[in-house]
């Protein structure tokens, strides 16, 4: 657990970066600090491992005041992932990951064995360990950065815009990877980003900060989307927040109905109804229109996944029927947008 108690940071040039921050980061959760530049999110993060010290106030990590611990010792117990990874160009990937264990006095052999385990944990092949950072892609470097931060198994992980320098597709992969790791490792993570979508995607709780170092709202992502504290948060959260908030509602209340199917490869006839084309494993392949022409299908959603997926499936389907599949991708049934909206309405009531 990390506790900020009335923390203020004023720099020598007179700017106030953080203003009376009171906030508790629960153990075993991902808390995201998000806001425009100059809102004090990175400054707040850097005060946790004493890269900066507060002007006033107290920061406690697991109940202990950080100002009472010698900075290098404190930092070895707190993982840190930096923008652009910050890997050491002159050390191999394996030795980069082994950095903190070596600093804390492990033998080289033991530290390297631990580093090899971590490369595997973050999904990198072992032979990459012998390479130098310059030989890796941006996404791979970022994974090595995460592995390096986890090497000494610290309970707390600080991540400063770790994925902002990679392209959107790679970023999404890294976010999924982080969520998968977190499910396994259960760390207390503070994650800084300027990207609200990233915050909503990975945060258990999100702290929205505003310029001048004020905390605007601290809440789970679903609450930010449905009940923003003020206009600033509403604006910052952005467009389509009503629709986006459906990501946090599960679709279990939506009953699926049966639908007429035709086997892929058979000859299609005209008929008054739309029919779903399925392959031998019952995986949806597209639709046959009443005039017997074949039309590509819309998005699919997995039964029990978010209701946003169910609604999108119905809205994007050429037949107006959203297609639900099971975990193996086999047809489970179909829903209409009307049905989905009824469930949303009834939940609201």
């Amino acid at each position: 657990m990390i506790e900020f108690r009335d923390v203020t940071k004023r720099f020598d040039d007179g700017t106030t970066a953080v203003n009376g921050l009171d906030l508790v980061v629960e153990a075993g959760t991902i808390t995201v600090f998000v806001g425009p530049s100059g809102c004090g999110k990175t400054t707040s993060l850097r005060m946790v491992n004493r890269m900066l010290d507060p002007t006033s106030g107290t920061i406690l990590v697991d109940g202990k005041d950080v100002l009472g611990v010698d900075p290098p010792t404190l930092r070895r117990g707190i993982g840190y992932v930096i923008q652009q990874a910050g890997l050491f160009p002159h050390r191999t990937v394996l030795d980069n990951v082994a950095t903190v264990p070596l600093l804390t006095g492990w033998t080289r052999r033991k530290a390297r064995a631990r580093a090899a385990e971590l490369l595997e944990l973050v999904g990198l092949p072992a032979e990459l360990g012998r390479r130098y950072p310059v030989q890796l892609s941006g996404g791979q470097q970022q994974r090595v950065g995460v592995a390096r931060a986890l090497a000494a198994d610290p309970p707390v992980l600080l991540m400063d815009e770790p994925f902002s320098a990679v392209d959107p597709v790679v970023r999404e992969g890294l976010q999924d990877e982080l969520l998968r790791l977190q499910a396994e490792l259960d760390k207390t993570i503070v994650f800084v980003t300027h990207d609200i979508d990233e915050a909503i995607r990975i945060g258990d709780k999100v702290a929205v900060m505003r310029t001048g170092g004020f905390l605007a709202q601290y809440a789970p992502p679903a609450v930010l989307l449905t009940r923003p504290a003020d206009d600033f948060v509403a604006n910052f959260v952005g467009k389509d927040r009503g629709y986006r908030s459906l990501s946090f509602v599960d679709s279990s209340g939506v009953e699926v109905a049966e639908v007429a199917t035709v086997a892929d490869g058979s000859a299609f006839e005209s008929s008054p109804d739309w029919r779903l084309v399925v392959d031998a494993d019952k995986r949806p392949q597209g639709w046959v229109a009443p005039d017997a022409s074949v039309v590509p299908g819309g998005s699919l959603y997995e039964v029990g996944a978010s209701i946003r997926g169910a609604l999108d499936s119905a809205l994007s389907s050429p037949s107006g029927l959203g297609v639900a599949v099971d975990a193996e991708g086999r047809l489970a049934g179909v829903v209409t947008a009307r049905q989905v909206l009824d469930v949303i309405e009834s939940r609201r009531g």
Partner: protein
Amino acid sequence: MVTYLSDAGTRAALLDRLLEHVYLSLVPLVVSVVLAIVLGLLCHRFRPVNATLIALSNVLYTIPSLALFAIIPALIGTRVLDPVNVISALTLYTTALLVRPVAEALDAVPSHVTAAATAMGFRPWRRFLTVELPLAVPVLAAGVRVGSVSNISLVSVGALIGTGGLGTLFTDGFQQRYLAPIIVGIVLTLVLALVVDLLLVLLRNRLTPWVLVGKP
């Protein structure tokens, strides 16, 4: 020429001159690498020191070497023929040559790399010795190569004030109007410079394997 080299006494004397030359040119090189790292670190950490030291080293470099060889005994109280004079003078030159590249190489270490090192719990000295300094090696090595060649040629000038080295072959040759020692002196100086440069390149490659992998 053949007669000159066929004499065993001459060959032994040549080897002595060569070893003197190596000693007089490489000791200042090693000392000034250490000095330049210390001064370069000061330049890197404290901006005002930077401007002063760079200006000072530029001025120093404009003093002719022969004049410096002659002034130094007066400054540090050594005898005129003491080899320490040449060593001190060349140390000054080489340090002046190396301070700036060392400071610039340290400035060029990416800030996210040093920040990551600090955040992982490196204490300042360990961070300097194991992260910043190794990353400055490629630039430092380039400076050292220039310094080694320049020292090897400047040591010859020292022979004019009688400090030994291969330069004595030139002074002797001129005095006796005898060409052979002059040619041998030139060839040995060239070979020495090339061999030292080759060794420095090997040492640099050994110290910076990460630089080579980045190239196709």
